[in-house]
């Protein structure tokens, strides 16, 4: 297992190289970074445009530019951005914001998904199963901005009932005064509540669908039949045996989803005005800001690969039938 782990970690380096080079090429041919400047009213003088081009290294050939970026990484230089930001510092900040936003949501979604899977598998095709499936699929097919809007409407009504602003509809709490610890807790709840619900509902939808089916398969497997034959209680069979073997596929989806949300939660971040990784990616792509996107790729790519690695290790831990050596 240790050898496996080391091999997987080592292979991440060439993978990041390949991914970053491909992404570099893709973004470089996706548009002109200076387009925004060139379409100002009026456009800046040619000297200014030229100075910006030099700053963004656009006067250098492609391979040189990639090499400059790569070598810059070793000294902590993530490259120049059109908007004059320190990409490295920005990444750290945004990662923190995204993680804060996601952590609670992922945990919540996972718990709900497990509960829903159990109900769905044990009571398959019952009314409870149908309703849960209905809700789960609705969550997957519902656009986030609609869900967010309804949540915000609800929040505004709640605030009006309570007489003070408990729930916030946007922002991460910047500039709000919270003197006492209790105030701080309230502020945290107020700012996190809506985004967490929105995110976890989305994730719950997908995960519970996979979990249900995985648990159904597990409950029909001979491994579980054996447990039943041994005379164990149904609860114990379902929870200790069925759930455990069904966790492998479910973990896959969680691992994949958790990392994907990091990048693709753009709409959620826009709707709740959290300046996270998704927002960074979108602005980077829209502005053809190649070094911003590469910075994002480094962070998100590593996270995705690590998540997948953790999931793979957990399979072997959870399911004794799985072995990686031949």
């Amino acid at each position: 297992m240790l050898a496996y782990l080391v091999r997987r970690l080592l292979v991440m380096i060439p993978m990041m190289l390949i991914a970053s080079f491909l992404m570099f090429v893709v973004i470089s041919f996706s548009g002109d970074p200076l387009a925004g400047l060139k379409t100002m009213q009026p456009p800046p003088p040619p000297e200014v445009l030229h100075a910006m081009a030099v700053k963004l290294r656009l006067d250098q050939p492609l391979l040189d530019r990639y090499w400059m970026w790569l070598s810059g990484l070793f000294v902590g230089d993530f490259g120049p951005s059109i908007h004059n930001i320190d990409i490295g510092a920005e990444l750290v900040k945004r990662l923190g914001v995204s993680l804060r936003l996601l952590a609670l949501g992922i945990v919540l979604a996972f718990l709900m998904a497990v509960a829903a899977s159990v109900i769905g598998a044990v009571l398959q095709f019952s009314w409870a199963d149908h309703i849960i499936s209905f809700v789960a699929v609705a969550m997957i097919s519902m656009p986030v901005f609609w869900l967010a809007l309804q949540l915000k409407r609800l929040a505004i009504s709640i605030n009006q009932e309570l007489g003070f602003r408990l729930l916030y509809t946007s922002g991460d709490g910047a500039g709000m005064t919270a003197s006492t610890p209790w105030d701080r807790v309230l502020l945290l709840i107020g700012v996190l509540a809506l985004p967490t619900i929105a995110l976890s509902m989305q994730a719950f939808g997908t995960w519970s669908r996979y979990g249900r089916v995985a648990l159904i398969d597990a409950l029909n497997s001979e491994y579980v039949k054996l447990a039943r034959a041994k005379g164990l209680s149904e609860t114990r069979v379902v929870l200790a045996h069925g759930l455990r073997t069904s966790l492998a596929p479910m973990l896959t989806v969680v691992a994949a989803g958790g990392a994907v949300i990091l990048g693709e939660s753009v709409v959620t971040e826009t709707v709740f005005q959290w300046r996270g990784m998704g927002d960074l990616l979108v602005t980077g792509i829209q502005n053809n800001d190649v070094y911003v996107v590469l910075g994002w790729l480094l962070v998100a790519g590593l996270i995705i690969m690590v998540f997948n690695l953790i999931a793979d290790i957990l399979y072997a831990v959870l399911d004794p039938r799985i072995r990686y050596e031949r």
Partner: protein
Amino acid sequence: MPSSTPASAMSDRAVEIGQAPAQEQVYRPWRAIARKFFSYKASVVSLVILILIVLFAFAGGPLWKYSYAVSTSDLSAPPSWEHPFGTDHLGYDLMAGVMRGTQRSLSIAGTVAVLATLIGSIWGAVAGYVGGWADSLLMRIVDLIMIFPLLAVAAFLARQSQGGEHGWLLVALVLATLSWTVLARVVRSVVLSLRTREFVIAAKIAGAGPVRIIFRHLLPNTVGPIIVAATVLVASAILSETALSYLGFGVQPPDTSLGLLINQAQGAISTRPWLFYFPGLFIILIALCVAFIGDGLRAALDPKQQRK
């Protein structure tokens, strides 16, 4: 019904000898599967509704009096007999728009679901069964694709193409290429736990090659997650297209899709709600129907599944 594979013949023999029969998939004639499927009410109802939606989308266009590309003089009209889904602020009939949009969205979702399911399941099964360095290579490629943000690829391609009649196909291909990865991982994880099972070993002893083992023994046992993936993909394909057109990379006007329609109606949710809820309703209906059909299909195909 006689089973015709040597492996199953073997399992019969195993029963004779008195051992616990090796669990494995036996191919049953389609009639039995169909009968099983039609006993699941939710799935049947969903199938009917889905067929109606498909008819509505593809056959409704020419039959309906308004075209989605022609604006009438009824601006922002709420639903009425004249315009059952209402009109938008330019007088375009929404029902015509929804028909056309459903066409596009179904095409995209269908393409994505079929392609991604095919690629993902085969890829994952091969990787899980073969193991070793081939498995590593295949899964590292999966990792690589997972890292690539959909947005960047879509932006790049949007620049190269520039909309037009077949813009939706490009969107569908992009989405398919980037979404088969999760299924590949799921299938692989299931196959990993299956490949040490007796029926697989029995099949190998009986001389079955890897292709046969994968397609006749392993994949059928992963039919559960595969169907779920396909159904989830349908819904998420529509929503990914929505996210893409939100940022300007998806289906372009004057062509329309359900995603584009709900994006355009984003600000109107409380003022002219019909513009949002009708396309949204179709999205949810399609996703729900596909999901319940999938549930029924999976249960019908699974021999271990007890009839309820």
